């Protein structure tokens, strides 16, 4: 039976059967790029966001202050430019610019990873800055009042809370990255969307190929969003806490369950 004689479902099954390997490699490439770049994007975003959220210290000397101004200006430019232009053009700009101006051939993989990470970083920087500002200033005061330094306060108190607050946005970014790696087809990255284009081009079955590819994208994004939800609830810890028994110093020995609503049992 030739493909023109098949119905919609037969064509989809045919595509899945014939191209399962291509789909798998495409989906794997997409996921690797999305996961790695979301991770590095978060790292970049944390560093940039922290620098941007830092209030100038009154004890800093003039040199350090002006240096901070310059650094902050550059970071603001970075954030605004990468948020304000399409990633597809950024990909073309960096990939072809590197080879034409600097005679560097980035290679498809490193180009893809750099572009998506740097782009995600720009978005995450703003998110992190907002996340840091959303943490109650009383948390910082509480820490400073027991003698904790700025960096200890940041590391132990503010960032853990900021990261928890921005977890939904991190998840959002991951999902956007899974979908948006498709723009990398402009530099020839063989990810899921590229796979779709090749298959539909070869078979002229755009509708069926699109349906199958969409379903794969959806499975990927939905799985990720569920996993992230799970991580979020894990971060929140249990809703109830264990009430230590009256022997306070031996409180590891026996615990009774304390339920906030019903009270504890002794």
């Amino acid at each position, binding site marked *: 039976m030739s493909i023109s004689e098949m119905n919609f479902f037969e064509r989809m099954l045919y595509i899945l059967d014939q191209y399962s390997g291509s789909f798998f490699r495409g989906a794997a490439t997409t996921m690797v790029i999305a996961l790695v770049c979301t991770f590095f994007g978060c790292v970049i975003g944390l560093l940039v966001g922290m620098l941007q959220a830092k209030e100038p210290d009154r004890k800093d000397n003039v040199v350090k202050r002006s240096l901070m101004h310059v650094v902050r200006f550059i970071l603001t430019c970075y954030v605004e430019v990468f948020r304000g232009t399409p990633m597809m053009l950024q990909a073309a700009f960096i990939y072809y610019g590197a080879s034409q101006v600097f005679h560097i051939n980035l290679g498809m993989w490193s180009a893809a990873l750099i572009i998506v990470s740097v782009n995600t970083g720009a978005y995450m920087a703003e998110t992190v800055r907002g996340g840091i500002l959303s943490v109650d200033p009383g*948390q910082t005061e509480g820490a400073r009042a*027991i003698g*904790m330094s700025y960096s200890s306060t940041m590391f*132990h108190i503010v960032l853990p809370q900021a990261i928890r607050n921005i977890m939904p946005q991190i998840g959002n970014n991951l999902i956007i990255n899974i979908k948006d790696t498709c723009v990398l087809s402009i530099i020839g990255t063989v990810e899921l969307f590229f796979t779709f284009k090749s298959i539909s081009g070869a078979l002229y079955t755009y509708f069926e190929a699109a349906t199958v590819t969409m379903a794969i994208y959806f499975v990927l994004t939905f799985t990720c969003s569920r996993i992230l939800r799970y991580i979020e609830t894990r971060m929140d810890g249990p809703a109830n806490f264990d*009430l*230590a028994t009256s022997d306070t110093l031996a409180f590891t020995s026996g615990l009774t369950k304390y339920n906030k609503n019903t009270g504890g049992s002794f």
Partner: protein
Amino acid sequence: MEKIIEVEHLVKTFGTNEVLKDISFDVEKGDVTSIIGASGSGKSTLLRCLNMLEEATSGKILYHGKNILNGEVNEDKLRTKVGMVFQSFNLFNNMNVLENCMIGQVNVLKRNKAEAKEKAMHYLSSVGMAQYVNAKPRQLSGGQKQRVAIARALAMDPEVLLFDEPTSALDPEMVGEVLDVMKELASTGMTMLVVTHEMAFARDVSNNVIYMYDGRIEEEGSPEKIFNNPGKERTQDFLSRFINK
């Protein structure tokens, strides 16, 4: 008695707004000083200058004779010695009760975990919160949070504790449990400065009362004098508002 803190001609301005105007007073070891006064009179600002959460504009704050305002004293070191309890508790939301009382000891005082835990448990027991080591701040009532905050401050082995309206954010039925802890603390000889609207506490527990009015110390003296025989009309006016309530 040994003087721990001497404040001399302290001035604090925010922009052009002079909030503290020429404040001078001493704190001796074991003193329980209550600071009373109307809202906006500068009580919190004064307290926050003492542990350098606010930078004083001029004047001197001597801590054991050393001026903390000229850069000789490390501010983080000072804060381990001059602890603070806030109106809004400021417990670390990402940590449980035990971790709240350990982080400063481990991170700042470099105590080992076992030692820090023992100390934390000791003070949590003394404020009646030892059973709640595993609870997160959001799972506690206001009074419980404040008692943990007191234990957290005590775990640093401070020499002075500053309290900024420690019971003002509490439901009335929880005020007592926190005041009881503070009374007990006072009886152990802890040096305390307490900004409060609890006149009974100021009268019965403290040995020195400072009445602030518009950024100045309007009157200072023993609770007997301030409450029974105030020398200034403004002090009388202020106190009469509480008695009539």
